[in-house]
């Protein structure tokens, strides 16, 4: 283990968080719903790998459990559920967007800068090897939030919500080497249930309006 100096460890963690942010941008640029789900699964896999790496480098056991749960819940179960939902729908891609792809990408780039400037005063005080990831975690939360607002299909909004949750998980790992296990278990359960409920709700939306465009929900019906 002589090659695994703290410096290389930090770089590996940084690299993992960079990949998380990259998949975030890929989700923003992607129009096909099923590809978005795949990208979310990939992002969760990167998250689990980064978390496992942090667990290995710091010897914090309970992060391993959280990483394993991430693989089970976010890489396997939730993408399956979402794929099932998408199969029932009559749309395969996001056609009408409130903000088009290049503009969304630019706005997300600006969000990364904002996240960086907000966290910049805090980061030098941290001495954890994950401290650089805090800016990226905040950026992922902001991008997820922006995607939820700017997309109209319920499925994309759900994916954006899950992306936000990934950002929060990364933030918790970056700031404090993870939350207490009991809190993390609760969060995983919440996310799973939220995804299931949103899946059912999407199906209901499809039955009621013959579309999963959530803007229909703000129209008055007689």
């Amino acid at each position: 283990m002589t090659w695994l100096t703290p410096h290389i460890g930090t770089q590996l963690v940084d690299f993992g968080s960079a990949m998380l942010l990259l998949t975030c941008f890929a989700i923003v640029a992607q129009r096909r719903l099923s590809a978005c789900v795949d990208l979310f699964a990939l992002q969760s896999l990167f998250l689990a790998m980064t978390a496992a790496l942090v667990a290995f480098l710091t010897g914090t056991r309970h992060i391993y459990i959280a990483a394993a749960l991430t693989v089970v819940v976010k890489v396997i179960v939730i993408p399956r559920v979402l794929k099932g939902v998408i199969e029932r729908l009559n749309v395969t891609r996001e056609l009408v967007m409130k903000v088009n792809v290049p503009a969304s990408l630019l706005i997300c780039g600006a969000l990364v800068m904002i996240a960086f400037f907000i966290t910049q005063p805090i980061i030098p005080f941290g001495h954890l090897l994950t401290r650089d990831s805090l800016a990226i975690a905040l950026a992922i939360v902001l991008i997820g939030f922006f995607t939820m607002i700017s997309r109209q299909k319920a499925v994309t909004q759900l994916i954006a919500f899950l992306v936000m949750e990934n950002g929060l998980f990364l933030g918790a790992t970056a700031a404090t080497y993870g939350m207490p296990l009991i809190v993390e278990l609760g969060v995983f359960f919440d996310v799973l249930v939220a995804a299931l409920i949103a899946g059912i709700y999407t199906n209901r939306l499809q039955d009621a309006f013959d579309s999963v465009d959530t803007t229909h929900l703000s129209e008055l019906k007689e």
Partner: protein
Amino acid sequence: MIKDQSILQAIAITLAQAIVLIAVSPAIVGLIRKVKARLQCRQGAGIFQPYADLRKLFRKQPVVSTTTSWIFTATPYIVFASTVTAGLLVPVFASQMPLNFAGNIIAFVYLLALGTFFLILAGLDAGSSFGGTGSSREAIVASLTEPAMIMAIFAIALTAGSTNLSTIVHKTALLQGIVTDPSSHLMALAALFIVTIAETGRVPVDNPATHLELTMIHEAMVLEYSGRYLALIEWASGIKLLVFLTLIANVFAPWGIATSLTPTALSVGLGVYVVKVAGLAILIGTIECMFAKLRLFRVTDLLGVAFILALLGLLFFYILRG
């Protein structure tokens, strides 16, 4: 005396690198065509076919429309000269270019842009509608790739602490495989690869193998050219492709490049260079087979992604200080 010798050596190294770029480029174009043909279960022409094509074109009489101005006949020479000059600024097989003082990466970008600008003018010059369409499309692509390219290059320049290509490559080569900013470099690499594909008119953006008027960009601009003018333009676009591949290979993976001017280092550098560039050419050929050409209005999405990747590369340099 020693001073004289080093000047002679510098001139020899510069000339040798330029000659390698000019001489190898048709073979790289041929290699990409061969890879594509093999992947499509065709036999394909040999990789040295482009040399024969160029020789044939140089022998033929050029036909120039009477409606064209001097720009039309001057453009092939300007494009060829500006591309070769840009190539002089890129380290090919020795990391220290004697022309280092003459220009940095920004000069490199705008020398290539000068060629593109004149090609756009020449496309309009003959007054045909295809030329106009091609020029308009090329202008869109060029204006969108430029910021992405500049950003990607700045991301690398920040790590090396210099905008001089020689210094960047030399510093990275001396590190011997230790990458100081992996995330930042990876983003810049991805951005620069998309830029390469767009700038050299490769498949997701433009199709170099077709003369179908609906889809072509570069081919539409040069449709009016024939004879030696066409040969010069084709050769210049081959050199441009090779210059971009050289840039990617040497900036991101400068391993094996000659950091000193001993004969062994130089010959190893040349061998490694040919292998690296051939590998990249095979990659481009494979990508051309795997993807369909994008609709013109989706090209902006792809180039937007390239810009964002480059921007992230730049931001990661500051965010991930390690």
